[in-house]
């Protein structure tokens, strides 16, 4: 029996007392970031994750650009019952879209920070590293650009979040944020490949970085910072895109968007676009967007493509295109950007000349979509981020700001106009070309031209803000609608007239306010 006792006690000792090591476990079904980023493929996979935010559904960013388009002088949300939300400028710090937009952008920033930080110590060769780092820097700059134009002073984080406890972070002045954005972009510019080398609009290329530099500098030069020294920078970078000779306007305005509907690239015109893919019906990916199904022509027919129209034209946008006495317009952009018809099931029923406000944003039309069967909600249609016409207009604006209405500035504007009228882009045409305007006059022309050319592309609100005319433009258009709209669409002015001083910036979202002790709220919210 003594022997048995010994065995038992031995068992006890073995099982209980010497097993401390068993507690050191390693995750079985996920990887830890510490051990990643050692190969080019791994770094590229992480880069995909940074790109992914551009089209992520809950980031509510480009995926469903309703909130970027509606509620200013170009578009309104065509639902009488819609009385809250970004699209009608009726929000609070609690609003889910405000929270999601902020969250999505900082999510992108952190993903970029993780990649940038880990690339530093990674054994990947410099040649392989450069384009990855360049794209990551550009994306981080792009996300910060969205933050600074929407919220003003924002927390500037350039390191990955590493602690769950020290999470409080104060706001950095907008000027510093702009400086960092420009610094990142300037660092990225030599690292990334040229547009020609990349060959399609889905990946960041040198022209995209230069275009962004032009855009960022224009904003920095405008309201509210009015750092006018930046016009020169905007001029420099837009000029570099033009002088690269890699880009030109697509002769057909509508073809730009049909290409997007048909998943075709046009690197000459479409310098950078958000790539959407699939439609969630025949694939398990979440890379499909809602361009066409939310921003498009109302349609109940599944073959054409169902669309719950979430953006319709204002009177101002419609009337900004020069109309002929019969109501038609020689500016081909009007009846493409603004659908001249509605669908009655599959039949196109034209609107009458006076039915302006009823018209939906029509740039992206599901009838051209090639992926079938079409999904009611999701489409593979891409969304533009930087087009060559935008570059031309930015160039003109910067040139005008520095040197006045020079020939170069006028030519850039006129190229855009000629294409709009279906004319040869590089052939002067006196019936269309702008000439003989002064500096202020040209600015006004550029402002209107940007409306006509770039409507529904998510640029208008912030253009108005940097020109310092956002509130006036909105209130004028609201008054215009109140005075001239048919009774059943008078509500179109609701969201547009809701803007006040405080709408120049969004409220810092409640999710940040309640959890970050160092953050402060924007004025008026």
């Amino acid at each position, binding site marked *: 029996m003594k022997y048995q006792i010994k065995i038992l006690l031995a068992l006890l000792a073995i099982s209980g007392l010497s097993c401390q090591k068993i507690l050191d476990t390693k995750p079985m*079904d996920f990887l830890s970031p510490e051990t990643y980023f050692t190969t080019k493929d791994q770094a590229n*996979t992480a880069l995909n*994750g940074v790109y992914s935010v*551009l*089209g992520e559904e809950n980031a509510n960013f480009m995926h469903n650009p309703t909130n970027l388009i509606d509620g200013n002088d170009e578009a309104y949300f065509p639902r009488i019952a819609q009385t809250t939300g970004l699209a009608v400028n009726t929000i609070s710090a609690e609003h889910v879209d405000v929270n999601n937009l902020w969250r999505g952008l900082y999510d992108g920033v952190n993903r970029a920070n993780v990649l940038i930080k880990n690339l530093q110590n990674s054994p990947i060769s410099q040649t392989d590293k450069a384009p990855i780092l360049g794209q990551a820097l550009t994306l981080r700059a792009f996300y910060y650009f969205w933050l600074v134009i929407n919220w003003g002073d924002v927390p500037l984080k350039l390191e990955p979040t590493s602690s*769950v406890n020290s*999470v409080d972070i104060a706001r950095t002045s907008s000027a510093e944020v702009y400086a960092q954005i420009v610094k990142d972009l300037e660092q990225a510019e030599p690292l990334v490949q040229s547009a020609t080398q990349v060959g399609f609009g889905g990946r960041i290329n040198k022209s995209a970085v230069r275009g962004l530099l032009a855009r960022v500098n224009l904003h920095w030069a405008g309201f509210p910072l009015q750092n006018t020294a930046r016009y020169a920078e905007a001029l420099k970078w837009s000029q570099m895109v033009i002088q690269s000779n890699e880009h030109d306007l697509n002769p057909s305005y509508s073809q730009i968007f049909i290409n997007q509907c048909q998943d075709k690239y046009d690197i000459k015109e479409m310098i950078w676009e958000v790539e959407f893919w699939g439609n969630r019906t025949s694939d398990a990916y979440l890379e499909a967007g809602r361009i066409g199904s939310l921003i498009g022509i109302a349609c109940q027919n599944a073959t054409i493509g169902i669309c719950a129209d979430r953006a319709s034209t204002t009177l101002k946008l419609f009337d900004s295109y020069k109309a002929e006495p019969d109501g038609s317009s020689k500016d081909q952009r009007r009846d493409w950007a603004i659908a001249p018809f509605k669908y009655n099931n599959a039949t196109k029923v034209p609107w009458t000349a006076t039915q302006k406000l009823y018209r939906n944003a029509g740039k992206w039309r599901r009838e051209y979509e090639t992926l079938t069967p079409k999904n009611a909600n999701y489409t593979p249609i891409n969304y533009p981020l930087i087009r060559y016409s935008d570059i031309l207009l930015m160039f003109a604006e910067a040139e005008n700001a520095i040197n006045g209405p020079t020939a170069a500035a006028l030519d850039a504007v006129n190229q855009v106009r000629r294409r709009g009228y279906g004319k040869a882009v590089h052939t002067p045409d006196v019936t269309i070309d702008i000439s003989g305007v002064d500096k202020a006059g040209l600015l006004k022309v550029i402002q209107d031209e940007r409306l006509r050319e770039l409507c529904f592309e998510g640029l208008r609100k912030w253009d108005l803000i940097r020109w310092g005319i956002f509130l006036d433009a909105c209130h004028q258009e609201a008054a215009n609608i109140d005075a001239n709209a048919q009774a059943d669409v008078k509500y179109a002015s609701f969201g547009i007239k809701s803007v006040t001083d405080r709408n120049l910036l969004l409220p810092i979202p409640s999710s940040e306010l309640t*959890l970050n002790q160092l953050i402060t709220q924007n004025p008026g919210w």
Partner: protein
Amino acid sequence: MYKNYTALRCGIPSCVKPKLWRVMKLSFFICFVTCLQLSAASFAQKINLDKKNTPLREILNEIRRQSGYSILCDADILNTAKPVTVNVKNSSVEETLTKCFADQPFNYIIKEKTILVTPKPVADRVITASIDITGTVTDEKNLPLPGVTVKLAESQLAVSTNNNGSYKIKVPDEKAILLFSYIGYESQTIAVGDKKVINVQLKEQNSKLNEIVVVGYGSVKRTDLTGAVGSVNIADFAKAPVRSFEEALAGRVAGVQVSSQDGQPGSAINIIIRGANSLTQDNSPLYVIDGFPIENPENNAINPADIASIDILKDASATAIYGARGANGVVVITTKRGKSGKIQTAYSGNYALNQITKRMAVLSPYEFVRLQADINQAKADTTYLKNHTLDYYKGVSGINFQDKIFATRPTINQNISLSGGTETTRFSISGNIMNQDGIIINTGYDRYQGRFTLDHKFNDKFKIGLNFAYASLLQKGNSPSVNGVTSQTYLLYSVLGYRPVGYNGEEQAIEDNLFDPAISTTNDLRSNPYVTLQNEVRNNNTENVFTNGFLSYNIFPSLVLKISGGFTKNSLTAEAFNNSQTRSGASILGPNGSFRNDKTLDWLNENTLTYSQTFHRDHHLELLGGTTLSGRSFSSYGATVIGVPNESLGLAGLDEGTPTSVTAVASKSYLLSYYSRLNYSYRSRYLLTATIRADGSSKFSRANRWGYFPSFAAAWRLNEESWLMPLKSLSNLKLRASYGVTGNNRVTDFAYYSSLGFPIGASYSFQNATPSKGTYVTSLSNQDLKWESTKEIDGGLDIGFFNERLALTVDYYHKNTSNLLLNAQLPPTTGFSNAYKNIGEVQNNGWEFTLNTVNISTPDFSWSSSFNIAFNRNKVLSLTQNQEFMLTGVTWDQNYNNIPLYKAVIGGPIAQFYGLRFNGLYQVSDFDVTTNANGTVSYTLKAGIAGNGNSRAAIKPGDNKYVDLNGDQTINANDYTIIGNPNPKFIGGLNNTFTYKGFDLGVFLQFNYGNDIYNANRLIFETPLKTLNSNMNYFAVVADRWTPANPNTDISTLDGQGITSYNDRFVEDGSYLRLKTVQLGYTFPKKITDHLGIKALKIYVSGQNLYTWTHYSGFDPEVSIRNTALTPGFDYSSYPRPRTFTFGTNVTF
């Protein structure tokens, strides 16, 4: 016997029936002088008496008072006592008694602190004694029992055991029969046969006070308990005809809140002990099944008929021995094992009918058509009213899908068991087959389960035991409350919302087709629920293997080593298939299906040493030390496939379709623990327990891995004090106090690691190529993560009167849970929305009362009651960082998912309903009314009258009005306020048991008071819409909607909801009193069963959920379809709870 004696001691001679007394007298015996030779040294008390010619009764009472000893004697024989004259000073009890009993016809025996008075021996009869029998009598712990009566049957010859428990008796021949009896123990009868030595072990009699309570790593008599432990009365409990023990647990034990998600067979049941501690983490208790601690076990795998006891450890002194996993309380389940003796076979079977208790009243065909006309008169004129007048529909009965999908369905439950064995080897085998059909067609639950136990004693020192159980479970059928994208995809939406009539002879199509021909399937997701139920496959197949064994070795009589080990393997295969006759299969996805296989393996090795010793008679010490190593591994693999070409193959044809998503999850954790417990008692009067446990978990980083959980408890049994002796009716009075720290480690296994996720959403497509995988840091590491700890104090009082015929237990507790393992929200600037942090604090405190009474007790008729009630208050003390409150939504409908319905605010309970206050409807008088030239009337809301969140121009009479709390003339999130409290003010139960001859009747009532429920069914079915979902049916009250002619109502006009929001109109009182279980049984008398050749036969009828008193308007007030600590009491499309009638029999062969 014990009972009779004790009754006498209480001074109520009348409770002993004369007949019983005679029997008792017969068993009286001669008392040997040896019994009196007890060591005087052990008597601490000194007696002072100076009495002349005083009745013995008074003298004895005086001795009892002074010594603190109990005195047991028969009141009748005291009547024959002679008056006593005695004068002693500082005399021992023994000396005093000897003097007092000098001339009396009595003897006395002193056993521990009890004086037993017995008649003096009658002189030996002429018995020709020839055989000497010797032996020792011991108790269950093998300790010698002195003073046991050993009596020769059918004679007056009796002896009693000496201090060593041994005896010697002469018996006449081998046919002699010996009776062993002792107060408080069950008597035993043993035939002498050819034996010369007869050793007997007596079992303690079952009394409430002697009841054994199973606690962590051991068991203890209820009298010796220092902590708060609630025991389920298994006899009453077994009367409930339920599938799983959890279903019958509600209301049985004070402070244990049991609520099931809804009435679906197999739906999740949530048990919360003394309030929820954790905000975002699991609050369910730890289960210890036959000594095997396990988190979230598959409780359906346990057959309730196999359960021998359920004890619920509530306070920290009881749970701290489970350390890091004890904070949510511990449910200790012990299953039945074999008993020695002849092989006993038992069969029990029952047949039950499950029936729906309630149907929702929906609009009649007439009202439905009237609504359609209100929605669109022109359209109604060309449809419903084309060939018929409105009044025609008054005579139409219409289609109600509730009639088609609800049915009365049976449950058949059969158990068979076999048990028996010898003194050394005992075994039991049991099996159970249960087939339960749900009250919704094509839903149900099947269980096939078997168990085997074996216990073997090699010798007095060495024992082993084995327990093996296997269960195969199948939960089948659609779950109506399973999460859907919109409220329209839920089963009961289609059942209640399907239109009752068609026009133009569509009735048949409405009844038979998958989709109503009148609805557009892109906007309206209703589908024929009957067809859906017939075609959707939803099977959850579980296989559960539970094995454990132990080996126990008495190194010394007082030192026991126990080594145990075991494993539980639970494998769930969830299958779903949607053929073309289902909404999903008929959509663009085509026939589709999915499967998932979850495997959980828990294993454990446990080694304990228990030292138990009594010193100097009065000091009892028990010391336990142990180590446990346990582990859990989990894996889940599955896939979803769409576009299955050959749907007739069902799931087996998935390989031919297009896979869309694949799940693969694997994880494991280990826990290494050391623990120790000290129990000390002085004369069973002062009791002390101290425990400590150290737990090391792989879920935390090295620095924070170890947690230490101490507890202390003390109890004082005041009724053992001499100064309380005169209080004759008092049978028990114990004060308890405890303090301890317990933990909670319910976080994911690798929460402290940063993880790099590759979610499909992080992909990005370049150049139209299939998206490339993307990755990012999906969770933030927190190396500081450590145990959540709960500090709890508990004060308790156990008081019993009249030999526990009236017993009351009161407990007060106060728990503070700090370092909450909170899945805390992070500011979005971090790039993360949540991370596990130890932050925040929650407090729970409350009172628990349990009252057990024996109201009537006669041989023929008895009535006993058991009542419990518990009050818990919980309060959030702090949240993450500077968060003042935390808002939580419920996922059920895409329009509402982002709207918070619950608010946890510092200083308030963990969850409260949050939303708008309903303020009636707008009336015409609230508007400026203008009529234009065409006669069109338009309404403009008067200035100064607040809007309802819609644009003011859109508001019309009959729309919902809300309280504009901030007075800004409009309604938005700033007007949200607390609109209800889902936490009950008190919960409890009342059980009554009646027996009359062979009949027994159990009546069990359960109640829940003061909690609110959010009835989202009404949000959908009492909010008529114009623009969407025409041809949809609503609740019958919608007939009373606002019209200019019917302004005094709460039901808004069409499209009258205003802002999409939750409001307090649908917050309902969820209090209820439920007649939960009634069982009437009849046990056939022995002469009949003997005749039939069986041992026992019982037949019974019983009912479950017979009647519920409640104001709740939904199917059933016990509902919480999205149950978490933050989101209790939400109801939408819940499976109705059935009423069950059962007919059954129990036969023992």
